[in-house]
């Protein structure tokens, strides 16, 4: 690149040279550089998704089909045995993936919709709206969320929709705080001022100027919050106010078969049964966290490559 022209031209100024790539090419390039933990996480998540989506084909029986023998041992007929009512544990694990993950995703999405939009609005407004929302969020956050959701669930009754709404609202407080904090950094930029000077509406500024620029931290947070929602649902189910039978769910499966653990000295396999759903929860949480870590590291701007 020996550029010997002595005259100045605007188009010839030295700028960052970046090759244009399609979205798929860029994604593949990033994936190739991803650490092994991120790959592990991605594969586990993909497997869970597969099982959740194709549950009726993967599971040998139907979700609430009851067989004659409760607590049947592990066998070729019932891979992981049956539970206290005689339902196939493997089948319920598979359906549990579908129910628990589906509800957790819906809840997280909803909480991001509520918390994200309010947070950005508060950051732009910065006056009475910001004060009002922020203090209200402080109040909500001051109450231990598990106890609060237990209380609300017993007031409104525990069905799936109430469950999603209540957890989403309680969780959106944290999303609100994050969205507000990162938006504050963007709101002061000149391009937001330029848009306001142009006379753009609040909605346009939010969608076009702020949202794209706060997306990376929000996506990372989405992964983390998803884990927490997932755990909350499992704990609520374990306590008996979450997903109601006969719908299969990992949290309640742990509770229902918990006493089998005490048979460990007689039948190791039977004692493992309640640990299976617990393990499924743990594995997914770890996998999601691996992926989120990788994503956060990539977007945080830390570049230590030599």
């Amino acid at each position, binding site marked *: *690149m*020996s*550029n010997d022209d*002595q*005259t*100045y*031209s*605007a*188009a010839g*100024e*030295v*700028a*960052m*040279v*970046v*090759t*244009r790539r399609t979205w798929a090419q860029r994604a593949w*390039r990033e994936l190739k550089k991803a650490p092994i933990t991120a790959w592990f996480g991605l594969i586990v998540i993909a497997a869970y998704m597969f099982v959740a989506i194709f549950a009726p084909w993967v599971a040998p029986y139907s979700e609430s089909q009851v067989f004659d023998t409760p607590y049947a041992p592990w066998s070729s007929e019932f891979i992981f045995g049956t539970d206290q009512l005689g339902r196939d544990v493997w089948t319920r694990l598979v359906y549990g993936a579908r129910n628990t993950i589906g509800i957790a995703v819906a809840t997280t999405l909803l909480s991001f919709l509520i918390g994200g939009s309010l947070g950005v609005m508060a950051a732009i407004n910065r006056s009475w709206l910001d004060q009002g929302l922020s203090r209200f969020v402080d109040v909500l956050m001051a109450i231990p969320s598990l106890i609060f959701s237990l209380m609300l669930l017993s007031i409104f009754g525990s069905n799936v929709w109430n469950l999603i709404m209540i957890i989403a609202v309680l969780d959106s407080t944290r999303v609100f705080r994050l969205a507000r904090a990162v938006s504050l950094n963007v709101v002061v*930029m*000149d*391009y937001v*001022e*330029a848009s*306001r*000077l*142009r*006379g*753009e509406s609040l909605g346009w500024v939010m969608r*076009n*100027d702020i949202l*794209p*620029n706060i997306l990376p931290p929000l996506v990372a947070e989405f992964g983390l919050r998803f884990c927490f929602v997932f755990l909350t649902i499992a704990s609520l189910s374990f306590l008996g106010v979450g997903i109601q039978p006969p719908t299969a769910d990992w949290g309640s499966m742990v509770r229902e078969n918990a006493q089998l653990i005490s048979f460990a000295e007689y039948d190791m396999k039977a004692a493992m049964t309640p640990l299976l759903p617990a393990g499924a929860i743990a594995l997914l949480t770890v996998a999601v966290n691996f992926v989120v870590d990788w994503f956060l590291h990539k977007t945080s701007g830390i*570049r*230590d*490559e*030599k």
Partner: protein
Amino acid sequence: MAKKQHGERNKGDLLLDMRDIRIEGFSDEKWHPIIKGVDLKLHRGEVMGLIGESGAGKSTLGKAAMGYTQPGCRITGGSILFDGIDLRALSDRELRRLNGSRMTYVAQSAAASFNPAHRLIEQCVEATVDHGLKPDSDAKADVRKLFRSLQLPDPDNIGQRYPHQVSGGQLQRAMTAMAMSPRPDLIIFDEPTTALDVTTQVEVLSAMRDIVQQFNTAAIYITHDLAVVAQMADVIKVLRYGETVEDAPAREMLKHPKMPYTRSLWAVRSLEKPEERSDDIVLRVNGVDASYGGVVKVLQDVTIDVPRGSTVAVVGESGSGKSTTARVITGLLPPMKGNVLFNGEPLPLALKDRNKDQLRRIQMIYQMADTAMNPRHTVRDIIGRPLEFYLGLSGKALDARISELLKMIELDDSFMERLPGELSGGQKQRICIARALAAEPEVIICDEVTSALDQIVQEGILKLLLRLQNEFNITYLFITHDIATVKAISDQIVVMFQGKVVEQGMKSEILEPPYPDYTQLLLSSVPEMDPDWLTHLLAEREKTGAMSSSGN
């Protein structure tokens, strides 16, 4: 490694010898050459000015002189001998012993380089004490002396302050004291005055020059401002595209630049616009008082007339209310008293009360093109939005207009899909100009639009603005602190000081003596290409006792 005694510092000994340096930077999966074989020799007590436009590799070369490269860069060839020590052969550990004791660095932004949580003096002596050169109390006493010779106010106690408690110019001097504290053999100044305004710059420059001379320190002074280099340097090296263009003693090069590229750098300062008189007032700021939060008055009874089709330059140092005036005109800051007349009609004071057409007629261009454009929007989105929003263009008509605007700013259609991050500084500012132009405005407010750019690019932007003014009869309100820019572009000048208009008039009237005191200070602070300018200026000011009243 035998420790050298201070007594051995003989002026004129070869200190730094860099031969055939090659440095590569990693981006987009590939290594690109940044420095392509540069030789550099520096003697003790000598100051070398390293100049060139941005992207020329000045800073990279400066850092390499300390044996250091930024992350993502590597030295691939050449040798660096510092006082006989081969820096490239040293381990990181050995290199760290030299850095901060025998070689120090003064960064462009002192505000970003100081830790806001520690007192100045602690940070100034840290390296000296850490390297075991002096005990803590001696080092502190010494730094206080340095503060004094750098003419910081209250040198005995200023070290107890935190970085945010002193001004930008004071901080830059504190950083020089920090760099001086271990009595290094070599200091690298990386654009230390670029972020300061002219009146402050003069004081920092003279302080740095004195201290370098006093201790016989060698220095590399990196800048894109030729006039500054003329004051500081004994020798000048011009870099372009990572190669040496020209290398000569300062006085010789300033008088007879040999290479055409060097001459083109010199030519920038000669841009001048013949002034035009006009009585058709398009915009009038009418007796405006303004304040932030109603407490401190930032503007007091400001009245400015802007005639159609001409350029009014608003000058003054930072904090004089120039940008606040712009905020009042755009409606971002409704004034407490007075109003803004546009074509004789008063504009609603607050932004939200103005209609689309009123907004369209006044556009704004910002100082930092980086932050003035949404990093996630392509050039097409950025220029296209005002067309869509104000003029209702869409589809083919929109595309055609965008490409027309790109042509007007001397860029082509290949820029359409680029993101701001893929443009150079000058190109970014051009896109901002196109965005303002897209709205077909009558008045454009330019807030220090060229001060972040280097000189060749500045000239290009100024020429573009002048051409656009001739073609479309646009009026500019040009906020700046750079008098060279004012000479180049303005018809009228408004001088502001502490929120008041000191003077307003035609360019020829204002730039002719006699001046009010403040105008005098401002004008005389603008560096000239004459290498003796600073010396004369200081002698002059010594006589009359005039120094900046702001205490910077």
